[in-house]
């Protein structure tokens, strides 16, 4: 790989051991990819937290050791200086205020807080959400980023027109210290053109339908670039957030175009920009039903746990849930957790939305989600969620059965303790 003089200096250790180890990882990674060079980035979203039981042993050696091993793939423990790129923390495993509700040991919560002091002192912003774009990190079209979190990556590329590959814990750790990332994949304009045309034959409008469409497409298209055409209505941040998260769970979609809506596709022609259409995908009633059936693996209609907010809810979604719960009580057999970024929780508290949800018997959670933390209310066997992503991962990770449906279906399940949702 070709390095600039400054990059060579970093690689050779002129600017310290941490940058040398970071460059070593970036070069190994870039060569594995077949990248010719690195590109400058000043927008990194990564996973720097130390909140899982498996890092307990490593934490005893100090947070420099944690960062060296887990964020730089370096067996040499190096002293970590301040980050040089703007950097934020994505979702973590522990809610810093509600860890006991999650069933997490006090010492692990303490470990996360200590870790955050260390990472914060090096300039890593503790957004602690899978949706940095909901709390102020909104990259500009064309901006080179180094983001993790598949649902955020697909949003960053497709909706914002900024450029990132799906980075990992180690590459973002190295990028934050060097402001560099391999110039490969979605950083290169011609790799961002559409590959598959999707004909949407049924009306796609509500959040649930955007989730189903994404879940179906991911499985068919894997990591190619779909161009949506047909009968969808104007989407919003919330709907595209769910669509992308679903497509990045069943498959590896990192980029899509919606002509006249997303920034790199004013028209269908521009979406493909001369690329041959490699495949056509039809999406009708049968495909919608297939996605629904693949997501709903539960048979028992008694619901133990309702999870809302994957990806993390916007404040408008918190309001919708609060409104649906207003003056009602959640079933004694069911728990409800509503997830939103910490910064938006502040607004929910101020607006009284949190009180509406807690008065009904629910919890408003931040910083984490059940799939990441692997924690749900004790004894949960059946979960209901409005998130295709959570319905995809929770059964695999924790062995629970899942119902997937609309926000309204999920709130009704919380109140009645029974699943009565279905396809309309």
């Amino acid at each position, binding site marked *: 790989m070709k390095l600039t003089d400054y990059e060579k200096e970093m690689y050779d250790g002129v600017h310290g051991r941490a940058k040398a180890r970071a460059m070593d990882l970036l070069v190994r990674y870039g060569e*594995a*990819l077949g990248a010719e060079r690195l590109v400058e980035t000043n927008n990194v979203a990564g996973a720097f937290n130390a909140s899982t039981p498996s890092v307990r042993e490593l934490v005893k050696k100090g947070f420099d050791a944690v960062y060296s091993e887990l964020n730089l*793939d370096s067996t040499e423990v190096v002293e970590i200086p301040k980050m040089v790129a703007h950097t934020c923390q994505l979702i973590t495993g522990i809610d810093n205020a509600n860890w006991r509700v999650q069933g997490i040991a006090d010492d692990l919560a303490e470990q996360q807080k200590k870790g955050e002091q260390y990472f914060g002192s090096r300039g890593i912003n503790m957004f602690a959400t899978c949706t940095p774009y909901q709390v102020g990190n909104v990259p500009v079209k064309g901006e080179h980023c180094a983001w993790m979190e598949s649902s955020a990556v697909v949003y960053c590329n497709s909706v914002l027109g900024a450029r990132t590959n799906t980075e990992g*814990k*180690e590459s973002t750790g190295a990028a934050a210290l060097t402001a560099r990332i391999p110039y490969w994949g979605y950083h290169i304009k011609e790799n961002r053109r559409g590959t598959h045309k999707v004909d949407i034959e049924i009306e796609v409008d509500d959040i649930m339908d955007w989730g189903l469409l994404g879940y179906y497409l991911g499985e068919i298209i894997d*990591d190619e670039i779909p161009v949506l055409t047909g009968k969808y209505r104007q989407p919003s941040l919330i709907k595209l957030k769910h669509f992308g998260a679903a497509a990045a769970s069943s498959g*590896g979609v990192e980029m899509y175009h919606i002509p006249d809506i997303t920034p790199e596709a004013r028209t269908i022609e521009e979406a493909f920009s001369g690329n041959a259409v490699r495949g056509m995908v039809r999406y009708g009633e049968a495909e919608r039903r297939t996605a629904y059936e693949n997501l709903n693996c539960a048979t028992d209609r008694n619901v133990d746990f309702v999870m809302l907010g994957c990806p993390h809810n916007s404040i408008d979604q918190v309001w919708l849930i609060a409104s649906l719960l207003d003056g009602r009580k959640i079933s004694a057999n069911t728990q409800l957790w509503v997830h939103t970024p910490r910064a938006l929780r502040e607004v929910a508290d101020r607006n009284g939305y949190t009180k509406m949800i807690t008065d009904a018997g629910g919890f408003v959670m931040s910083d984490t989600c059940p*799939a990441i933390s692997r924690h749900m209310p004790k004894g949960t066997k059946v979960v209901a969620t409005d998130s295709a992503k959570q319905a995809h991962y929770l059964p695999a990770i924790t062995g629970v059965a899942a119902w997937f449906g609309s926000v309204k279906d999920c709130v009704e399940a919380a109140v009645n303790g029974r699943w009565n949702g279905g396809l309309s």
Partner: protein
Amino acid sequence: MSADTAAALVIRIVLRGRKVVGGCAEGEAIVTRDTISGWGGINEREGTVIERRHELRGQSFKDKVLVFPGAKGSSGWSAYFHMTRLNNAAPRAMIFNKMTTKVALGAVVTHAPAMTELEQDPLQVIETGDWVKVDADNGIVEITKRKR
């Protein structure tokens, strides 16, 4: 049957490809046509596939040569394969078809020899149970077919 005829029945195939991570290792192949998720798709302590509708569900790639189409799903791919290494549950080598950032970084941090762009589709040539040597430094994969 004489030893000579038995030896003659051993089928060896040599394929060239591109190095992703250097080194040389050999072991029994575990082959899947399904792409693999890291976070949410594998158990990092046992090296087992846990995805609900995956053809390898419940099977472990620990100490085997993992032959698969590529990576999908969460960006936790590399972190989870990284942890399989720290937990001694990593594959001995990897062979895959489709290059992505997830699989590239995951292979790099697993520290196991890895190759891609083989001259023939490894999913067609290699079957679970075959003995496979991945000499990534020299860009060579040597397959000894299991007797069937």
